[in-house]
């Protein structure tokens, strides 16, 4: 991952400002220490860009992260990837030692849990689609509760009549459930292959929903597999 420095050196420096060539970047071992300190100090995941912004010029945060990750492999604390960000987290097998730190969370209703799962697996998904899958109206407050937990957020509006808002899961959701990305949701591939993430209109209503199908959940989730 030396793209950053390559990119920098290709750009002609217009002003005699501190350029990467002026000061040599610190040795990689030192960069690794810095990244370690930065991640250690922060409870929230930090993106590559956020980490880079705090390092001296010419540092390669990605490479330092790679070293750090293998250094922490198998230890009591691990370097985890959360979406596009990174965080240090205690190893899951040691959770029982941390009784005192345990945060009691409000017990979620079955409706809230299912709504969350539907957003995660079908994202981006509209409220109407959630209701169609569950076969019941989403009660007031369920969406509100998930927004408040910062587990779901608004996605793009669907480009269909009415332009309904959609919901997607957040980085906090990934962090909370120890997922690197939404692609790592358990059983996602199997569900997709079984056609259970498609949006299939009721036979006879195909014309009405045709629009939707083009930009629907099925497309959203399959996008996840394209790269």
């Amino acid at each position, binding site marked *: 991952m030396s793209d950053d420095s390559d990119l920098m050196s290709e750009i002609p420096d217009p002003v005699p400002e501190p350029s990467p060539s002026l000061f040599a970047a610190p040795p990689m071992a030192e960069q690794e220490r810095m990244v370690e300190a930065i991640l250690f*100090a922060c409870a929230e995941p930090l993106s590559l860009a956020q980490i880079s912004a705090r390092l001296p010029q010419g540092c390669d945060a990605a490479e330092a992260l790679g070293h750090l990750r293998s250094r922490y492999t198998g230890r009591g604390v691990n370097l985890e990837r959360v979406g596009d960000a990174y965080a240090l987290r205690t190893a899951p097998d040691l959770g029982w030692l941390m009784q005192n*730190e345990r945060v009691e969370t409000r017990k979620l209703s079955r409706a809230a849990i299912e709504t969350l799962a539907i957003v995660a697996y079908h994202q981006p998904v509209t409220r109407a689609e959630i209701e169609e899958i569950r076969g019941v109206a989403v009660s007031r407050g369920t969406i509100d509760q998930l927004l408040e937990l910062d587990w779901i957020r608004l996605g793009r509006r669907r480009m269909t009549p009415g332009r309904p808002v959609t919901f997607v899961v957040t980085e906090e959701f990934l962090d909370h459930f*120890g997922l690197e990305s939404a692609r790592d949701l358990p059983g996602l591939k199997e569900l997709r292959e079984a056609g259970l993430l498609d949006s299939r209109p009721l036979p006879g209503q195909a014309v009405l929903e045709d629009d939707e199908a083009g930009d629907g959940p099925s497309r959203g989730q399959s996008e996840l597999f394209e790269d």
Partner: protein
Amino acid sequence: MADDWDTLETVSARREAEALIVDVAGFEGPLDLLLTLSRTQKVDLRRISVLHLAEQYLVFVEQARALRIELAADYLVMAAWLAYLKSRLLLPPEPGEEGPTGEELAAHLAWQLERLQAMREASARLMGRDQKGRDFFARGAPTALAVSRKLTYEASLLDLMRAYARLRTRDEFRPYAFDRSDIYPYEAALERLLSLVPGASDWTALQAYLPEGWRGAPARKRSAIASTFAATLELAKQGQIELRQSDTFAPLQLRRRPGHGGGDE
């Protein structure tokens, strides 16, 4: 085959349907009920007999009517649709008839059930994962850092949306939690009962559990009774409490299930 179904319907299916009716408040809509009914067929959802399922559902609705249990409108809409589906499945299609075949509609329903089941399993698996703050932990004493600004202002999207909602309903705006002054929410009833259950070692009438201020005006009382009743069904289902009724329309009584400490699990 047909004979098998018939015997099943006359004996065990009917009994099951009756058991289900008592539990009607525990279902999250007609699709959820259908999914539960489908389990009695003891086959993979992909090989389910939708015709039989439709019949089971219609039996359920009939039984509910016989017992004078009012079903929510969406249960009746589903019943009407299943009756239609049943006729499409049983009768040969009219020549030149438009629209999807009964088989197509049945396949769609089976797929919907399979999808709901899949999401149920997915949510169970999701909640079964290691969770932050329970199984793994973030740094306990983070150094204050975020953006390199000395002073940052915090505002969430929710704050923003609430502010806008407040503006657009200026003067009339009240926090939504207090909107429906004569409706006692199910969640509140459940929460209240949960807190009272540990002390409920003796049989006590359901009415005694109504909250203060909800025992007078008929509309408010009705709402409180309905929510509290629904909550008792949920707790009975969870095995936390026991319910009894000496006779039809006799007062409903409840108590903590003996030996149950009142804990969550």
